[in-house]
Structure formats: C-alpha cells, structure tokens
C-alpha cells in the first residue's frame, strides 16, 4: 500500500446561526434506513442475540441480517468465546451430557445440556468445535452405523453428513473426522476424514473430503503413512489446515485448500523421555498453542505457539502454578512423590487468547472446580464448580476432564 499523504489544512470556523441547520429529524431518519452501509455499521456492533431478535423488525432487516455475507463481517468484528462445553464422564447415560463453563462476564444459560437436535438412538457427542460450529457424531455406534453432523448451537441449524463409502463390501476404518471452517474466508466448511487406505495395510491412511459447497465425500490424494499413535481424532483447525500431533514420530498437518499433507515441526523432547507428553493442543483467536509437560515440577510449564510460517514453535507464556496450589491444596496428591507426573492434580482445558494479550488466560480444571488463570499477572479465580462423577465422590483429588473433553463455544450466525 502506498504511504498515506497527509495534508494539513487550516480551518477557519464560522459557526453560522442554528437556523441554518438543514437536517430535520424525519429526513435524517429516512436517510439512515435507506442507507444499507450505515445501517450495517450499526448492526455490526450489536450482540448476536439482538441481531436474531431484530430480524423481526421488517423484511428489509430480515434480509440484511440473514445474508451470509453479513455473518462473515460479524466474525471479523467480534471473536468472543462465550464458554466451554465439557463432556461429563457418565457410564449409564445413553446421550452424553455436557457441563457449560461460562467465560463471559455476564451470566448466561448453557446452549444445551445434551444434544437432541436430531433423533439418534445412539446418542450424540461432540467431536470438535471450530469457529462457532460443532462437529458431532453418533455416540455409541459401530463405525458403519455412525452418523456425522455439523451443528450450530447458536441458531440450532444442523446438517447430517452423507454416509462414508463402503467399497466392495468393506468399510475402511475411520481414524479421525475433523471440521475445517473459517467464516472470515468462506461461508462454506469442509470435513476431513482419515481412513484406512484401500489395501487395508496397517499404518497406511487416506483422506476423504466432504464440502458443504460441492457435496459428497471424495478421495483426496494418494495413501500416506503416519505413526500408528498419531491422534487423528484430535485434529485442530488453524491457518487453513488441520493439525494432528503424535506422541512418537512425526506430527502432521493437512492444508485443506491445497489438499497437501506436510510434516509439522515439534519442540524437542527432553533427553530422558521417549515420547511426547501433550497436556494441551488447541487454537484461540488465530493462534495455535501446544503444552507439553515433562517435569520435574509439573506446576511449571511453557505454552508454545506456532509461527505462522511453520518454521517452529516459540515460548509464548511461562506458567508457574505455585500460587494456585497454595490456595487449592486439594490439587496436591501428597501420597505421591513431588516429582511424580501426577503429583499436581490439574488439567488444562483451554488457552484463551484475548484481543488484548494482557487479558489472555488459561482455563484450568482442578478437583471439583474450574479456574481462570490470567497469564500476564498470574492472578486466578474460580469460574465454576464441577460436581464429581458418582464413582469418584470419595476421591478428593479426582479430575473429570482433560483438554480433549473441552470444546469452545463461540456465538455464530453461520448457516449450515
């Protein structure tokens, strides 16, 4: 962009009498209504609840607010994480239940307790959250019978994805299904499925893609190999690609637009360790974060962030939970050795990046509660009480969830 030329001008003001004021209330009001750009400037700044309500103002407003392009622009203006859904561990219940940890300053209702938007006899569980949309699937079903859904909890819209192909009577195993959705780039989303490849060889995979724009599942590229322990289920969408970490060997990422698979550089593993110890892997406000904890003191750790050019990870935050363990001694499992990996009982549910980085924080799960930990000034406060699962009521330091049980909830008007 060429540099801006600034011209300074002297302004001599003569305030003419107010009888020269030409605007009359009715004239200005009409001009605003007829001026879509001006109206949009105002509407853009309204919270989503107001927008949904104001669809009923007039047909013109209905069409303005329902326009997918409008919901795009909304996304660019406001990225606010409202809360986290965390899946409760319950043995008996058919339909998984979710706690809602509210992250906004105003109290708000949980969008759902369990997923009932469609009748699935196997129950419905959340697989992944991506920029306001949730990827869900049948909860307890064999793979060939499993349904996959894309669901928007804000406007309750959902799509049932077409069934995955069966070739010559053989259903190739699914290793992971992930959602790629970036409303700032497109109103459409893609779903990436990693399956066993044709010849059913172990450790050989293939990718199939579903697009909400162009439709049915299709193969993408040839087969590829990957470490058998790579976690294809826990993919994270960032920078136009789905990222998968592996405890051994290479971690990978798949560029969704170019349909190319690449190796993702990872931080070095400390000498004495054979495998990676992920404690968190997720995305927030356009940043990819990774936390690996090796000890010896597991209350100290770094939060890594990936560079946009994939040249490597850098330490974004250094965390010391010493102050937290002082206030919440139930975190400490005194029956263990202080250098034991499980000496401190906590899990990291989310790294939340705020518009002003000084406000960025962690959501931590401690026994029976969730706590918000501010990364800059290291202050913290309790956010939420977690009722223990029935079979763990007696274990004071038990934890209910880890990072892969937590899903971000951001409000979105996106149509699915």
């Amino acid at each position, binding site marked *: 962009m060429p540099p801006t030329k600034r011209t300074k*001008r002297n302004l001599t003001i003569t305030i*003419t009498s107010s009888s020269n004021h030409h605007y009359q209330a009715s004239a200005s009001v009409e001009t605003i209504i007829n001026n879509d750009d001006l109206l949009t400037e105002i509407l853009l700044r309204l919270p989503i609840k107001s927008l949904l309500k104001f669809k*009923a103002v007039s047909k013109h407003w209905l069409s303005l607010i329902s326009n997918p392009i409008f919901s795009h622009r909304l996304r660019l203006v406001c990225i606010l994480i409202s809360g986290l859904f965390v899946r409760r561990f319950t043995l008996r219940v058919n339909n998984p239940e979710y706690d809602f940890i509210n992250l906004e300053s105003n109290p708000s209702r949980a969008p759902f307790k369990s997923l009932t938007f469609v009748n699935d006899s196997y129950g419905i569980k959340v697989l992944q959250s991506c920029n306001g949309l949730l990827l869900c699937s049948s909860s307890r079903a064999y793979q060939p019978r499993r349904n996959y859904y894309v669901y928007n909890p804000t406007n309750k819209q959902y799509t049932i994805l077409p069934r995955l192909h069966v070739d010559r009577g053989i259903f190739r195993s699914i290793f992971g299904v992930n959602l790629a959705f970036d409303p700032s780039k497109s109103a459409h989303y893609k779903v990436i499925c990693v399956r066993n490849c044709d010849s059913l060889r172990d450790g050989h995979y293939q990718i199939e893609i579903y697009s909400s724009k162009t439709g049915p599942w299709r193969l993408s590229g040839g087969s590829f190999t990957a470490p058998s322990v790579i976690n294809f289920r826990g993919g994270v969408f960032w920078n136009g690609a789905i990222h998968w970490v592996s405890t051994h060997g290479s971690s990978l990422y798949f560029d969704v637009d170019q349909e190319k698979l690449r190796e993702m550089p990872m931080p070095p593993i400390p000498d004495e360790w054979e495998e990676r110890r992920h404690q968190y892997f997720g995305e927030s406000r356009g940043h990819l974060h990774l936390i690996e904890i090796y000890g010896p003191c597991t209350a100290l750790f770094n939060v890594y962030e990936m560079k946009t050019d994939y040249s490597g990870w850098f330490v974004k935050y250094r965390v010391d939970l010493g102050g937290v363990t002082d206030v919440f001694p139930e975190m400490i499992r005194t029956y263990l050795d202080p250098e034991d990996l499980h000496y401190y009982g906590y899990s990291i549910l989310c790294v939340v990046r705020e518009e002003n980085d000084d406000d960025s924080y962690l959501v931590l799960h401690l026994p029976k509660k969730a706590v918000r930990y501010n990364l800059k000034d290291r202050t913290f406060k309790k956010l939420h009480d977690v009722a223990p699962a029935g079979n763990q009521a007696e274990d004071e330091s038990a934890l209910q969830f880890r990072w892969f049980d937590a899903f971000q909830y951001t409000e979105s008007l996106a149509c699915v």
Partner: protein
Amino acid sequence: NEENIFEDGGQQLFKVEEQGCSRLCSHSSTSDGTSEDMVVLQLPYIIKFCKAHGVSKENEFGKGKSNDELKEMLLVADYLTIKDTLDYLAETLANRIKNKSVEYIRKFFGIENNFMPEEKEATRKEYELLRLLI
C-alpha cells in the same frame, strides 16, 4: 490514499478522506483566502463534536446527546467520510438500541412493519424459541 487533516488554531480536529474533503470544501464560501485554506462550515454539529472529541473521552461525549442528534451526526460523519467519528457514533447508537424491543426499533428508525400477519407470527415464534434456548 490521501488524508486531509483539518485543524483549528493548532488543534487537530479530524481527518477526512479525499471524497469527504471535496464535499467539505464545496460547502465553503471564499472570502479572504483561497477556498483550499479556509472553509466556512454550515454544519455546526460536526464541529461541536470534533472540538469535544479532542478534549474529552469518547464514551462520555455521546451521553448527553439525544437519539436524533446522534443519528444526524452519523449522517454528517458518513457524508464527510470521517471514519473515527462514524465508528464512534455507530457504536454509541448500537449500545442505545441493543436491549430494546422490536417495536422500539421500528419507532427509532421510523420503520413500518411490512410483514404479513402469518410471517410476523412465524418470526416471533422463532425468536421465542431461540430466546429460551440461548
């Protein structure tokens, strides 16, 4: 991209883009100097705002102003392409209407409800449902 900064007695008032500048100048009348250096404004609102804008906090300025005054200033800011003022006014107006009822919005903007009764009912039902679930 050209930016023109208008000053008054050394105090920077506002920046306008090229299009707004020509509009501003078109409202001037030449007296002593060239029309480029002196602008006689016939729109007292924007000047009032900008003088206050320079010295007081943004979010206090909108307080005393009536809805009509804000709406008029928004139009002027848009016409003169003064982006900062426009953003601020849009934000202030949004805050004023965000928790109001649909009927209030119609009165505020002078909009007529052009839904058919059945459509009205459908939209109302949809909102009621969402309101319970959200």
